């Protein structure tokens, strides 16, 4: 039975039939009013309750995730701080071993130098020449009146000459003595310098140690705060993790571009090795081979940095004994060098192929092949790039490690935010459903306003006859017939 047939069930006159249908429908709705109100209200309440429950579960989940994220962040921060402290202690150990282990020797050197300087100082003490004892007698004689006596005059002249001669000798002796003392002081100079250098080196070591100790103090403080699950430290660590994520992501994007350039360098010549036509899964085999070479280079770089203990992505490599690790460094470095050499030769071959194609294109276009000068420059450039890029790509392990570690935090934060939004949406939807239920009840009553008005009038008139308050009856009626409002 079609809709049209259902509409015209009561009469061929569409309008009349529709009217009958409306009357029937309104009557049925009026009779079922109480049950309908209760059903709508119950459905709305159920939906709200279900969505509230969902929201509550999501909030709980979000809180668990936030807690877990905080744990992850603090754990990562703790590990990082532990590593930093360990590294600082290693440096302190190195300083102590390198500089302070020589402290007894340095002390001995200083003591020796000080002793030597002291003895030299003693040796350089200035002893003023003592005046001759007969100088007072000579002075008395020199005061005697000459009286014009030539003999006395000669004697005095002789005395004066003797005195001058004695004075000259004394001065000479004094100068010689001063020169000797100067020589002794000159000998002291290297000892002073040695002493100064020894003291400076000791001072540098002590200053370095002091700086390290300040840094260790800071790290220890941070470590203690992490252990106490300090909120401020957790926020700082999360922020640092986000920064790490973006910085490492940026470096990885740069590395990806480097990889693409590398790919362009070797994709064409690879077709000389694996053929230029065959395909694997819709991709040219030559392209896949080029990509595989680049991936292997990156993998070798990962293993190399892992073996050097620069990165810590593979615990099995870090925990190897030193001998095995050194072997691994040698092997990965050798493979990387071989691959770089292969790439350099492929880059050269690419240049040859490009030249060949260019010559063919010129020939097909009817142009004479030109002799381009300095053609060797791009050739060498490509070869150098082919050799350097694999080593540059090897270092991608460092940002990759940071990115992976930071991703845990970032993914956790993003997921927690999404869950929070979902919880809010569920709560909001539940409330909207509840309000929609109430609106539906009112709309329901609007649809059957005619019988409701009649009922209202009848009840009013009945109340008037009985002398009761008609409004009071209406309220009661609403409560019983209309069902409980949600």
């Amino acid at each position: 039975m079609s809709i049209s047939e259902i509409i015209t069930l009561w009469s061929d006159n569409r309008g009349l039939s529709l009217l009958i249908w409306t009357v029937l429908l309104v009557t049925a709705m009026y009779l079922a009013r109480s049950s309908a109100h209760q059903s709508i209200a119950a459905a709305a309440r159920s939906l709200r309750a279900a969505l509230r429950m969902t929201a509550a579960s999501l909030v709980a989940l979000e809180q668990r995730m936030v807690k877990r994220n905080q744990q992850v962040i603090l754990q990562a921060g703790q590990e990082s701080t532990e590593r930093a402290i360990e590294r600082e202690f290693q440096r302190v150990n190195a300083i102590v071993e390198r500089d302070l282990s020589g402290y007894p020797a340095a002390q001995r050197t200083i003591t020796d130098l000080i002793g030597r300087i002291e003895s030299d100082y003693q040796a350089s003490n200035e002893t003023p020449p003592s005046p001759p004892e007969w100088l007072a007698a000579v002075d008395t004689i020199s005061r005697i009146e000459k009286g014009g006596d030539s003999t006395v005059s000669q004697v005095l002249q002789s005395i004066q000459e003797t005195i001058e001669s004695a004075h000259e000798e004394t001065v000479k002796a004094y100068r010689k003595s001063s020169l000797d003392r100067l020589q002794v002081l000159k000998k002291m100079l290297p000892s002073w310098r040695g002493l100064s250098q020894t003291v400076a080196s000791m001072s540098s070591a002590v200053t370095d140690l002091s700086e390290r100790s300040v840094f260790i103090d800071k790290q220890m403080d941070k470590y203690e705060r992490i252990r106490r699950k300090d909120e401020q430290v957790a926020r700082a660590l999360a922020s640092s993790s986000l920064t790490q994520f973006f910085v490492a992501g940026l470096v990885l994007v740069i590395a990806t571009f480097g990889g693409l350039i590398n790919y362009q360098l070797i994709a064409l010549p690879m077709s000389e090795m694996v053929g230029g036509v065959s395909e694997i899964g819709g991709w040219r085999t030559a392209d896949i081979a080029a990509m595989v070479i680049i991936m292997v280079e990156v993998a070798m770089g990962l293993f190399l940095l892992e073996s050097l203990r620069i990165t810590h992505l593979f615990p099995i490599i870090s925990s190897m004994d030193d001998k095995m690790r050194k072997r691994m460094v040698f092997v990965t470095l050798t493979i990387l060098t071989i691959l770089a050499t292969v790439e350099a030769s492929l880059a050269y071959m690419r240049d040859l192929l490009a030249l060949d194609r260019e010559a063919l294109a010129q020939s097909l276009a009817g142009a004479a092949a030109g002799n381009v000068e300095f053609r060797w420059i791009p050739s060498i450039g490509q070869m150098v790039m082919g050799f350097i890029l694999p080593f540059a790509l090897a270092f991608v392990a460092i940002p990759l490690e940071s990115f992976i570690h930071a991703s845990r935090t970032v993914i956790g934060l993003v997921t927690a935010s999404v869950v929070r939004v979902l919880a809010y949406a569920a709560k909001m939807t539940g409330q909207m459903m509840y309000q929609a239920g109430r609106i539906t009840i009112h709309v329901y009553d609007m649809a059957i306003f005619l019988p409701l008005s009649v009922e209202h009038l009848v009840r009013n008139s009945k109340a008037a006859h009985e002398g009761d308050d008609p409004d009071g009856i209406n309220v009661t009626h609403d409560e019983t017939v209309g069902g409980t409002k949600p």
Partner: protein
Amino acid sequence: MKIHKLLVTVILCAGLIACGEKAPKTKAVYMLIDTSGTYTRELDKAQKIGNYLLGSLNSGDSLAMARIDSGSFSEKDIISKVTFDMRPSLATTQKHQFKRQLDKFVSNAKPSAHTDISGAVLQAAEFLNETQAQEKYILIFSDLEEDLVKGQIRDFTMPLVQIKVIALNVTKLRSDNIDPRDYLNRLDNWEKRVYEGGGLWKVVNDLDRLDKLLDS
């Protein structure tokens, strides 16, 4: 842990099976060059098309060129044929060699007395089917006016299944100018014969639009 390992192994195996080495879409092109009468003057255009083909085709593709003369259902009319090597460097060398042979043909071509286009198309179809390429093209560089030697039988259905026949530079004859219906009838007749043989038909008269010549 064991389940994880098993899953990874299964996924890897599935990936390897799905990624089996596939044969690529190769092309085979057979170009027929009309050498009858005054059409030899158009050979420089044929040379241009040949150069375009050499520039467009890649490793694994096949190319052959043959002239249309009095009896063209014969290998002796083939100017040059080649299947380009998988290695690009060798393919480039083959292209150089092919070009030299084409140039030599263009400079030494002599007009033929008759035009056996049907025989040439049959020869081309035979060659193309042997190549087993995915896309097969016959390029007919001619005015499509067939002029058979008395006694030659060519009025039968040609086997052109999955072959795309492209008529190039179909020039108008003097008689076409008097009654253009002759030209249209000639084209219709060839189109009908190609479709009867199971092939596809296309006419390209504007040689400046060669870039879409081999678009499937």
